C-alpha cells in the first residue's frame, strides 16, 4: 500500500501543469493540436490560442496545425511554454481542399492541382476560367472565341463524354454551382462569367477519380473546388486594386482589296461565261456592289474586317476589407469589371460583392456564412452563323461602301450590312447571381466534429432585345424579344468528421455524411412585333404579341458519402471513399448508383534506406483507382415525350423524344499512378502521373434511320478511353532574401480513343466529324483534297476507294460525289503544356506564362465561302490570288470559276493543324519600399503592367488557333471554325494599395 502510494505520489510529483499561448505571425492561433510525444494524451488551444496540459519534465510536446511547420518543445523547469508557429514553406505541405474537408499535400494520395490567388489575380480577362489556362497539368482551357461572354470549355484529362456535358463540376465553398448555358441565341454564354477572381483564395482541381469520387455521379469530368478568401485575425486591412488596359484582336487575316477583288472576279466570270459575257456579268455585279461609287477608279476599297474588329478595353477595380479577432473573422469585398470587346457591339460590365463571416460561438461551436451577389450586364452580338454578326462582314465586297454619304450604314451590300444591325438593334443580357452558404460546425468531442451546411445558388437572367425597322431582315415594324430565367439550386449537407491520432503512429480520419440537392429552373419569354416607331423598344409597346413561352423543370440528387484516410507512421497512406447517388434524371430502375475509390501512398523519403541520400528531400509514390459518373444529360432524357404544338393557332401534339427507360449516368473508371519528388531541400520538386480513364456507357444521341420518324435516340453506349502522362516540375532557381526566381513547368499528353460503339461498332457521323472505333473522338471525316490539275486548273479529290489489297486508291476525280471520305485529324490537342516563371528582385516582380497545344486540327467550315477561288461574290482570303491561271501552273488553289463549284465543297482543303505556343500572360510589377509609403499611411503600394495573350506562335492560317464556332451548342467540341472571332490580346496597367 505504501509502495503504491509512493509510486502514485511520485508520478504526481513529477507531472505539472504547463500553460502557454500558441501564435502565428504575432496572432493567437486557436485549434492547434498539442500532443505529448509517445502518449495519447493531448489537447487543443482555445480561441485565444491558450492551452494547458499536464506533462512531466523531459516529455516532448508536439504542436501541429495544418499549413504550419510542426514544432516540438521539451518540457523543462518552467511551467509556461509559448510557441510561435511559422507557415510551412515547403510546397509539399500545402493544404488541399478535397471536398467535405482538407488534407495536407504531403499526405495526399490523389492527384489534385492547386492554384492560389497569386496565379489567377490581375489577369485582365472577364472569364475567371481563362486565367487557369496553362497553369495546371492536364487541364485544358479554351474560350470558344473572342466574344467577351463566350462559352468556355475546360477539359480535365481529355474529353470523357460525347453526349453528356464534358464540363467539370464547379463547387464554390461547398455549393455546386449552376453552370448551364442559358443563352437564348445559338451562341453559348459562360455562366461563370459572374465570378470575380479578386475574392478567390484558391482553386483546387480534382483530377483523378480517387479525388473526385466523393462527388459521385457528378465527378466524371473532374471537380473544380473554388475557395473564397477569409479574414485573418488582426487589424483590418483594406486592399485596393485598380487596372485599366486596352485590347485588340490577337490576329487579323488578309482579304482582297478592291483591285484584287476586281481582278479575281473578272477572271472568275470570264472562266465561266467566256470573255464577253463574263466581263459583262462581272462589271454588272461591280456596279451593283459599288452602290454608285466609281469602282473603275477604285473610289472605294472598304476593309470590312477593320469595321468588325475594334480596339477594346478592360477595366478592373476591387476593394476588400478583411480582418478579425479571436472570435470573429470577416472578409468584405466589392469588385467592378468593365470590358469593351474587340468585336463591335460586344461589351460587358460586372459588379460583384461578397461577405464571408465566421464566428466562434463557444469553444465547441463555430458558425458562419458566405454571401455573394453579382450583376453582369452583357451587350451581345449574333452567333457566328448569323448574317448580321460582325465577323461575317469579312464576306462583303471591298467595292461596297460601308456607309452612305449621310453617315448611315449602306443598306445595299452583298450580304446584310451588320452595321445596320449594330445601329438599329440590340441584345442585352443581365445575369444576377446570389450564392451563399450558412454553416455550423460543432466539436462534440476532441475527435468528433459535426458539420451542417446549407448552400444556395440563384442564377437569374433576363434578356431584352429589339430589332428596329432599319435593321436587316426586319419586316414587321420592329420586333422585340424578352426572356426571364431563374434557376435556383440548394444543397443541404451534413457530415461527421472523426479524427484520431493514436500514439503518433496511426492517423485516422473518417468523414461520413449525406447531401440533398434540389434544382429548379423556370423560363419565360415573349416576342412581339408592330411597334409605333423605333422610339418604342420595350415589349409592352408591341401591338401584336406573336410568341410566348414558359418552361419549368426540376432535378434532384440525394447522396450518401463516406471517406476514410489512414496513415501509418506518416509514411504509409491509405484512403477509401464511397458515394451513393440517386438522381431524378435517370430511369426508375437505374436511379441509384454507387461510386467508390481506393488509393494508397508511400512516402519513401521517410524510409531509413533512403536516409543516406541527402539530395533527396521528398519522394512519394501513390496509386489510385476510382469510379465516378457523369449525370449531365438534361432533366428528362430517358422519357418518351410529346410536346404541345400549334398549327394555325390550334393546339396539337408532336413526338419529340424516343424513350429509353434504362438511361443512366456515364461510368468513368480511372487508374492513376503518380510519383512526387523533391530534391535539394525541394529546390527541385514535382510530380509525374500516368493515368487511364475509361468512360463507359457513354450517353450518345445515336442516329436512327430518319425513315423511323425520329433522328436519334439517347442511349448509354460506347466506351472511350483517355490515357496519358503528366509532368510537373517546379524549380526554385534562386532563393535569396531579395531575389527569388521560380520556374514551374507542366506538360501532359493525352491519347483519346473510341474503344467501343453500339450496333457492332457502326460509325457515328455528324457533319464533318466521325466517331469510329480506334480513332480519337470526333475525328474529322472528309473527302481528301488532292490539289489542282496543272493542265486545266480543275480541283481534284482522291477517290480513296479500297483497293483489293486493302490500301486506298489515290486516283483522283473532279467529282466530289465520287470521292470517299477518310478519317483525318482530330479536334483535340494531345500535348498541352505551360511554363511559368516568377522572378522577385527587391521590389520588382516579374512573371510570365507560356502555354502550348499540339495535335489538334481545326476545320474551317466557312472556307467554302472565304477561300473558294471566286466561286461566289464573297470577298476572298488573299491566298486565293495563288489560283491556277494557265496550263503548267503548280498551285493548290484551283482555277477561279464563278458559280463553278471548282473544289468548293467540304473537304480536307479546309482542314488545318492548329498547333500553337502562346505567351498567355506577363506581369511586371514594382512594390514601393515600406519606408517610402508608411508616411502616407499605406502598408503596400505596388504598380504593375500585365498582358494577356501577348504573343502567339502558330502555323495556323485562320484567325486564331483557339477560336471555334459558337453556332450550335456542340460545334465547339467538334473543332469547327465558322467566322469565329479571334481572342482578345490585352495590356493593362494597374496598382494595388493596402492600408
Amino acid at each position, binding site marked *: 500500500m505504501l509502495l503504491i502510494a509512493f509510486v502514485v505520489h511520485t508520478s504526481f510529483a513529477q507531472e505539472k501543469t504547463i500553460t502557454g499561448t500558441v501564435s502565428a505571425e504575432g496572432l493567437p492561433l486557436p485549434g492547434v493540436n498539442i500532443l505529448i510525444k509517445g502518449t495519447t494524451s493531448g489537447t487543443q488551444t482555445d480561441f485565444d490560442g491558450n492551452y494547458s496540459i499536464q506533462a512531466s519534465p523531459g516529455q516532448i510536446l508536439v504542436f501541429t496545425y495544418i499549413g504550419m511547420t510542426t514544432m516540438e518543445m521539451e518540457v523543462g523547469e518552467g511551467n509556461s511554454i509559448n510557441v510561435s508557429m511559422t507557415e510551412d514553406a515547403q510546397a509539399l505541405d500545402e493544404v488541399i481542399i478535397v471536398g467535405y474537408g482538407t488534407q495536407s499535400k504531403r499526405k495526399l494520395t490523389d492527384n489534385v492541382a492547386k492554384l492560389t490567388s497569386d496565379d489567377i489575380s490581375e489577369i485582365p480577362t472577364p472569364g475567371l476560367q481563362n486565367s487557369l489556362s496553362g497553369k495546371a497539368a492536364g487541364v485544358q482551357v479554351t474560350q470558344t472565341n473572342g466574344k467577351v461572354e463566350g462559352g468556355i470549355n475546360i477539359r480535365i484529362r481529355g474529353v470523357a463524354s460525347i453526349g453528356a456535358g464534358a464540363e467539370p463540376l464547379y463547387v464554390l465553398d461547398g455549393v455546386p454551382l449552376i453552370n448551364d448555358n442559358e443563352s437564348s441565341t445559338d451562341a453559348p454564354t459562360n455562366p461563370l462569367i459572374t465570378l470575380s477572381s479578386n475574392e478567390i483564395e484558391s482553386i483546387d482541381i480534382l483530377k483523378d477519380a480517387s479525388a473526385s469520387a466523393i462527388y459521385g455521379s457528378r465527378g466524371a469530368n473532374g471537380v473544380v473546388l473554388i475557395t473564397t478568401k477569409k479574414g485573418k485575425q488582426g487589424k483590418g486591412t483594406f486592399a485596393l486594386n485598380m487596372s485599366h488596359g486596352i485590347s485588340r484582336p490577337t490576329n487579323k487575316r488578309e482579304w482582297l482589296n478592291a483591285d484584287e477583288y476586281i481582278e479575281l472576279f473578272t477572271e472568275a466570270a470570264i472562266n465561266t461565261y467566256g470573255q464577253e459575257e463574263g466581263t459583262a456579268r462581272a462589271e454588272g455585279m461591280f456596279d451593283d456592289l459599288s452602290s454608285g461609287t466609281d469602282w473603275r477608279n477604285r473610289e472605294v476599297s472598304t476593309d470590312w474586317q477593320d469595321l468588325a474588329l475594334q480596339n477594346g478595353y478592360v477595366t478592373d477595380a476591387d476593394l476588400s476589407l478583411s480582418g478579425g479577432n479571436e472570435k470573429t473573422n470577416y472578409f468584405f469585398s466589392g469588385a467592378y469589371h468593365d470590358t469593351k470587346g474587340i468585336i463591335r457591339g460586344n461589351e460587358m460590365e460586372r459588379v460583384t460583392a461578397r461577405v464571408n463571416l465566421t464566428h466562434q460561438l463557444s469553444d465547441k461551436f463555430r458558425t458562419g456564412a458566405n454571401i455573394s451577389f453579382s450583376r453582369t450586364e452583357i451587350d451581345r452580338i449574333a452567333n457566328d452563323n448569323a448574317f448580321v454578326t460582325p465577323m461575317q462582314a469579312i464576306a462583303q465586297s471591298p467595292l461596297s461602301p460601308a456607309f452612305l454619304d449621310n453617315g448611315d450604314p449602306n443598306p445595299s451590300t452583298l450580304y446584310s450590312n451588320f452595321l445596320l444591325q449594330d445601329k438599329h438593334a440590340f441584345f442585352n443580357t443581365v445575369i444576377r447571381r446570389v450564392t451563399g452558404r450558412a454553416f455550423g460546425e460543432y466539436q462534440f468531442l476532441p475527435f468528433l466534429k459535426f458539420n451542417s451546411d446549407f448552400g444556395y445558388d440563384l442564377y437569374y437572367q433576363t434578356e431584352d432585345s429589339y430589332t428596329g425597322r432599319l435593321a436587316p431582315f426586319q419586316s414587321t415594324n420592329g420586333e422585340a424579344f424578352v426572356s426571364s430565367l431563374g434557376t435556383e439550386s440548394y444543397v443541404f449537407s451534413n457530415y461527421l468528421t472523426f479524427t484520431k491520432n493514436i500514439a503518433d503512429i496511426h492517423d485516422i480520419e473518417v468523414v461520413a455524411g*449525406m447531401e440533398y440537392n434540389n434544382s429548379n429552373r423556370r423560363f419565360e419569354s415573349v416576342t412581339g412585333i408592330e411597334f409605333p416607331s423605333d422610339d418604342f423598344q420595350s415589349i409592352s409597346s408591341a401591338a401584336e404579341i406573336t410568341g410566348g413561352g414558359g418552361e419549368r423543370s*426540376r432535378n434532384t440528387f440525394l447522396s450518401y458519402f463516406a471517406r476514410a484516410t489512414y496513415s501509418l507512421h506518416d509514411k504509409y497512406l491509405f484512403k477509401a471513399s464511397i458515394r451513393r447517388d440517386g438522381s431524378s434524371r435517370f430511369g426508375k430502375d437505374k436511379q441509384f448508383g454507387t461510386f467508390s475509390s481506393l488509393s494508397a501512398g508511400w512516402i519513401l523519403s521517410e524510409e531509413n534506406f533512403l536516409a543516406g541520400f541527402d539530395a533527396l528531400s521528398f519522394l512519394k509514390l501513390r496509386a489510385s483507382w476510382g469510379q465516378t459518373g457523369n449525370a449531365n444529360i438534361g432533366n428528362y432524357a430517358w422519357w*418518351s415525350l410529346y*410536346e404541345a404544338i400549334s398549327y394555325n393557332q390550334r393546339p396539337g*401534339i408532336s413526338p419529340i423524344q424516343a424513350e429509353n427507360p434504362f438511361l443512366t449516368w456515364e461510368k468513368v473508371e480511372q487508374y492513376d499512378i503518380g510519383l512526387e519528388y523533391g530534391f535539394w531541400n525541394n529546390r527541385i520538386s514535382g510530380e509525374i502521373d500516368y493515368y487511364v480513364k475509361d468512360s463507359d456507357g457513354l450517353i450518345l444521341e445515336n442516329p*436512327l434511320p430518319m425513315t423511323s*420518324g*425520329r433522328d436519334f435516340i439517347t442511349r448509354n453506349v460506347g466506351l472511350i478511353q483517355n490515357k496519358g502522362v503528366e509532368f510537373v516540375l517546379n524549380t526554385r532557381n534562386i532563393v535569396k532574401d531579395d531575389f527569388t526566381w521560380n520556374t514551374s513547368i507542366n506538360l501532359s499528353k493525352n491519347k483519346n480513343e473510341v474503344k467501343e460503339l453500339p450496333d457492332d461498332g457502326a460509325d457515328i457521323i455528324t457533319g464533318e466529324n466521325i466517331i469510329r472505333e480506334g480513332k480519337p473522338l470526333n475525328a474529322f471525316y472528309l473527302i481528301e483534297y488532292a490539289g489542282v490539275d496543272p493542265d486545266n486548273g480543275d480541283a481534284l479529290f482522291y477517290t480513296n476507294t479500297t483497293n483489293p489489297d486493302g490500301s486506298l486508291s489515290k486516283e483522283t476525280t473532279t467529282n466530289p460525289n465520287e470521292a470517299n471520305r477518310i478519317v483525318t485529324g482530330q479536334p483535340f490537342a494531345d500535348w498541352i503544356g505551360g511554363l511559368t516563371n516568377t522572378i522577385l528582385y527587391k521590389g520588382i516582380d516579374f512573371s510570365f506564362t507560356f502555354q502550348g497545344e499540339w495535335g489538334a486540327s481545326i476545320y474551317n467550315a466557312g472556307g467554302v465561302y472565304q477561300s473558294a477561288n471566286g466561286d461566289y461574290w464573297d470577298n476572298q482570303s488573299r491566298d486565293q490570288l495563288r489560283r491556277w491561271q494557265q496550263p503548267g501552273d503548280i498551285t493548290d488553289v484551283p482555277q477561279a470559276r464563278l458559280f463553278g463549284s471548282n473544289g468548293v465543297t467540304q473537304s480536307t482543303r479546309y482542314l488545318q493543324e492548329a498547333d500553337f505556343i502562346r505567351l498567355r500572360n506577363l506581369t511586371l510589377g514594382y512594390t514601393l519600399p515600406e519606408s517610402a509609403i508608411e508616411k502616407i499611411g499605406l502598408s503596400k503600394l505596388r504598380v504593375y503592367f500585365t498582358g494577356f495573350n501577348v504573343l502567339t506562335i502558330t502555323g495556323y492560317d485562320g484567325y486564331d488557333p483557339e477560336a471555334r464556332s459558337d453556332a450550335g451548342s456542340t460545334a465547339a467540341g467538334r473543332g469547327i471554325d465558322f467566322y469565329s472571332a479571334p481572342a482578345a490580346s490585352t495590356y493593362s496597367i494597374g496598382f494595388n494599395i493596402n492600408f
Partner: protein
Amino acid sequence: MKKFKTYGLIAFLFGAIISCEKELDIEPIQEIPQEVALSSSENIVNLLTGAYESAGNIDAYGGRLQMLSDLYGFTDQATWVGTFQQPRQVFSKNILVNNSFIRDFWGNAYSTINMANLVIDHIDIVEPDLQKSVMGQALFLRALSYFDLVRFFGANYEPGAQNTQPGVPLSLKGITDYDTDLTIARSSVEEVYAQVISDLQEAYELLKSPNSYFAGKYTTKALLARVYLQQGNYQGALQAASEVITDSKYKLTPSFEGAFNNDVNSTEDIFAIQITSQDGTNDLITHYADQPFGGRGGDIVVEETYIDLFDDENDERAGFFYISDYNGGTLTSKYTNQFGNVPVIRLAEMYLIRAECNLRLGSETGDSPLNDVNTIRQRAGAAPRAAVTLDDILLERELELAFEGFLIHDLKRTQRSVGELPYNDNRLLYPIPQREMDVNSLLEQNPGYGN
C-alpha cells in the same frame, strides 16, 4: 446522456434527408409521355394536328419543297443568286450527297408519315363520330408525303412500264419502340405510287367536304388528279380533276392576285399550309421576297426569259413582279405576305389538268380544253386563245403555276430536257442523303452519287 443527445441530433438530421428519397421521382412538366399521348381520343386528334404542323414545316410544304422543285427545273427563266449552297446545288443540278435541305426534306417527310401512321394505328380509340375524318386526313397526309418523296428520290414514273426502279422505303406502321432494328429497304416506284393511290382512294371514301382548312373529300381527289397526271394516267387525272371542279365548292378567286398572300384560305385554295404571325414559317417568303416583306432580299431572281413567255401585256401575271430594293433583281409578287398561307393545291391547277387530259384524250369531259384554258387566262385579264395545242396548255401551266413547285415534275413527266440534261438524267434525281446511307445498310444510293 450528453452523448445520447449528440447522436440523437445526428440521427434526426440524417433522417430528415432520408425522407427526401421520394423527391427523386420527378415527372416532366410541359411534355407528356408517349403512353399518355397515345391513349386518348383527344390526344390522337391532337397528334393529327401535329402531323399537319409537321407537313407545314419549312423543310417540306412550308416552302422548301416547292422552291427546290422550281430551282431544279430552272435554267434560264430564273436564277438562284442567294448565298445558300444547298439550293444553289439544286439550281446547278450538281447536288452533293450531304445537301442538308434534301436531308431535312427526307427526315421531315418521314416524321410526318410516322405521325400519320400513329394516328392510323390508334384510330380505334378515337371517338366514333370522328374516326372517319381523322383516319381520312391521316391517310391524305401520308399519301402527300410519299408522293413527293417518290417524285424526288425515285426515277421518273414511266407510263405503261413496270416501274421496278427503286422508290423510297414504305413505312406504314407507326413506330413507338426505337430500341429495335429500324433499317428498311426502298420499295419500287410502282409500289409507292400504288400505296399513294390506295391511301387517297380510301381517304376519299372517309372524308366529307369541305373540312375547313384541313384535308376534305375533294382535297384528296385533287391530289389524286395530280398523282395520276404524274403517272401519265390521263383518264384517271381527267375524272378526278373534273370532279373537283364540278362537285366541290372551290371557286377561282375573281382576280389572279387574290389567289396569293392570303391570311386565310381563298375560295380557290384546295389545300394550303396555314401560317400566322404566331406559328409556322412561310419559307417561300424567305427566299423569294425582298427584306421589307420578311425575305432575304430575293434569292431567286426572275429573268427576262420567263417574262418573255407572256404574249399579252394585259395579262396580270406578266406584271406580277417587283424590283428588289436589296439586290435590284426582279422578284415574283406571289410571295409578299410574311404571314400568308402557302398554297399547295389551287383550283386553277385542276382546270389545267382537265384541259391537258381532255386534249390528250380527245375528249371534252366537263368542258373543252379551250374553255378551261381561257377560264384561267381571262381571270388574269389575258386575251382568250382561239385554239389550244398541248404546248399551249403546258405553257399555260408555266404562266399560271410558276414558283409554286411544279416545274421539274412537269418537265420530267413530259420528257422535256432541263437545259442540256435529258429528263431522265441521273442529275435530275435527288441523292439519298448521306446521313441516311450511313445508318441504314439496306438503302441503295441513286446512280451517279457514288455508293
